[in-house]
Each structure stands twice: as structure tokens, then as C-alpha cells.
């Protein structure tokens, strides 16, 4: 049976049988992986806490099937210090990744971007630009590299003062007169330049939600509920 080491972050862990956990991780070597972390909830707590999110682990895996077995884990650093909204945002990133990463397809740039995103969330006071850039990165890497500078139909440069419709898989094209949810050129350009004004952030949030929807499926993301103010 093949045995190998992976460096990974735990995206999600659920208890499995009495003392084990079923882990979905994002690894440097293999992209998204699934494994059973044996005995992590056991009494001999040598591996206790080794299914915490936002900590880089080195884990020995074995198995050839889709579901691997995980043995010794070692934390390579302390958990990224995420608090409050930053923690919500990081949980959101995890939910997005669990939904859209393909199984065992190496995605090294994605791994590094995720790592970088966690570190930014821990440090930067504004989480929103970090999240939007994370989503835009994913869109681009998943093959939906939308053009924010040229009209998808006419190829004319996006004009700041004009309105545009967004069409999935095509991009932005000059809005028809009846269009209700058009994007203003100015905001589209700002997204392309990642030049974040409050308005650009708001529009970017709406845009990424639309553009990611084919990858995320119909079920709403649960972590979005965290951001809604209590009743």
C-alpha cells in the first residue's frame, strides 16, 4: 500500500466511529484530499487537536482509494490567529473550497493563495477585499477568467459611465435598455484593478456570487449566515 507524506490544512473534520475523524483537507501535493484520521479523539491524546482548521499539518497517509488513512500528524506551525469576523471569513473560505475543489487534483498555486489569504485575514483590519480577491483568484484558476476591461460581445473597452449586463461564461456586455441588474462600467473596471472602494466591494460581492454559483451549486453557503446580523 502506498504511503506518503502530505502538507495540508484541514478544511473540515467530523467525528467518525468512536475515536477517529473524517477529514477533508487541502494539501500542497494532491489538492483536496479525504482521509480517516485514526484515533484523533482517543484517550491517548497524542494526536489530539490535530484536526483543527487553519493549522498546517504534515500527515502520513496511506491507501490508494479515494478515502485514505491518516496516521501521524504533526503541526508545522501554530494555528493562524483568526478572531471574530476574520474567523468567519476563514470558515467561509473553507466551505467554498470544500464545495468547489476537485478531488485529488494538485493545485499548488491555490494552496499558496489559501495560505496567503489566511495570513492576510489574521492581519488586515478589512476582511472584505481579502475575500473578494480570494474569490476572483478561484474564478480565474477554475477557468472562468472574466475580462473586466473589454466588452465580451463587441470587444470595446469597458466605459466607466456605461451599464453592462453580466452573462455567465461570457462576461460583461453592454446592457439593454430593459436590463434591471446592470453593472456600472466604473465598478467593473475597479474589480479588474482590485481597486477597492466601498461601492466596488459591494458590486464585487454581488459579481463573485453570480460567477461562482455554477461551481458552488444550489445549496446556499451556510457560512454566509454568520455574517447576517442577529435578528
Amino acid at each position, binding site marked *: 500500500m502506498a504511503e506518503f507524506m502530505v502538507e495540508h490544512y484541514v*478544511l*473540515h473534520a*467530523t467525528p467518525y*466511529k*468512536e475515536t477517529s475523524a473524517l477529514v477533508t483537507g487541502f494539501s500542497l501535493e494532491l489538492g483536496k484530499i479525504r482521509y480517516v484520521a485514526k484515533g484523533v479523539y482517543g484517550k491517548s491524546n497524542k494526536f489530539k*487537536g490535530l484536526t*483543527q*482548521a*487553519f493549522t498546517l499539518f504534515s500527515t502520513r497517509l496511506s491507501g490508494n482509494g479515494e478515502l485514505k488513512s491518516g496516521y501521524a500528524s504533526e503541526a508545522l506551525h*501554530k*494555528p493562524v490567529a*483568526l*478572531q*471574530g*469576523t476574520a*474567523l*468567519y471569513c476563514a*470558515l*467561509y473560505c*473553507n*466551505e467554498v473550497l*470544500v464545495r468547489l475543489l476537485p478531488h485529488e487534483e494538485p493545485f499548488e498555486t491555490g494552496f499558496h493563495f489559501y495560505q496567503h489569504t489566511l495570513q492576510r485575514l489574521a492581519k488586515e483590519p478589512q476582511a472584505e477585499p481579502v475575500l473578494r480577491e480570494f474569490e476572483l483568484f478561484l474564478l480565474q484558476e477554475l477557468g472562468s477568467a472574466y475580462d473586466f476591461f473589454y466588452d465580451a460581445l463587441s470587444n470595446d473597452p469597458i466605459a466607466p459611465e456605461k451599464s453592462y449586463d453580466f452573462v455567465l461564461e461570457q462576461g460583461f456586455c453592454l446592457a439593454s435598455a430593459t436590463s434591471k441588474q446592470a453593472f456600472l462600467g466604473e465598478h467593473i473596471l475597479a474589480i479588474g484593478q482590485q481597486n477597492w472602494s466601498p461601492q466596488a466591494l459591494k458590486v464585487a460581492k454581488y459579481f463573485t456570487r453570480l460567477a461562482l454559483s455554477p461551481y458552488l451549486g444550489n445549496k446556499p*453557503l*451556510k*457560512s454566509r*449566515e*454568520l455574517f*447576517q*446580523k*442577529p*435578528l
Partner: protein
Amino acid sequence: MKFSPLINELIDSLRCLPGVGAKSAQRMAFSLLQKNRTGALKLSAALHDAMEHVQHCETCRNFTEQRLCEICSDEERTASGLLCVVESPQDVIAIEQSGEFSGLYFVLMGKLSPLDGIGPSEIGMPLLQQRLTEGAVNEVILATNFTMEGEATAYYITEMCKGLDIPVTRLAQGVPIGGELEQVDSNTLGRAFKTRSSL
């Protein structure tokens, strides 16, 4: 080997117990049939009664067969104005055993965990909000676990309390009594340093 339908049914049903697989279910079924029918009948009645009648307390969500659990019915505890938020009924038992706390509880029956489909409403946040709005709580003590999800849950409740102007405290963390420093994991030790207290 084939068992009779009733035995099969019993073995199958026993497997809903946590940690019980096919082999142990078989062992349990035969042991009960051979050695302890009285105990097994008692178990079956107790299981039935509990499953039928145990509900959630209307104010704290802990398990009880009454409308209000025993703790919530205690006037002295209610008068304290203290509300301790915990993840599970087991946490209530642990805190009760410490004998340190004489206020009321709110039992989340879980923790915020988006990937498990558990959001604010699944852990009773609307009910907690309602309780806090009613004005009988002077301090909320957060005793959720020190895991990522526990912290996220604590933060959610903190924000709710801020909006209602209710003071919030979080259980302190540190080195266990009787614990040796070299046995304590580095995160706990780090936190113990940060929250050290003067003597």
C-alpha cells in the same frame, strides 16, 4: 449464519448505539437473551420512555421532560442574573460538578459549524436573543469549547450581547491543576502566558 427475524431486528437496532458495530451488537443481543432478560426489559422501557418524553427545556434547551428544567425552575439561580452558555448537556454536568457556578445555562446543543450545516438558528440563537432581550440577564459567561467552531460561536454571541449592552465574559484558559508544564501543548501554554494573573 442466519438468525431469526426478531434476533436480527435486535442486533440491527443495537447498532444505533454509539461505537457499536455488527460484532458487538451480536454479543450484546445474545448476552441479554441468555443472562439478563429483566435488565433488558427495563432498558427497553427506559429507552422508550426517555425517547417519548424527554424534550428541550423552553428556556435553556437542555434535556428535560418538564416544560422547564430543574435548574431553570430554581428561583435563586434565576435571581443571579448570570447566564452560562455551553455547547452540550455534558458541559452543564461538568460545570455543575465544579460547584463554582450558581446561575442559569443556555445549552446550544452544538456549535457553529457551517460545513456541518449548523448555523445560528440551529444552535438556538433566536431563542437566546429573545432571552437576552427579556432583560433578566446581567452577564453572559461563554463556556464554549476552545476550538475554531467554539470560538466562532463565542464571537457570534459576543456580538449579540454587545448589541444589547450585556457584559460578556469568557472562561479563562490555562495549565491544568496537577499538570506539568512540559506535558501541556504549546498553544495552551502560550495562552496561559498571555492571560497570566498577578498574585
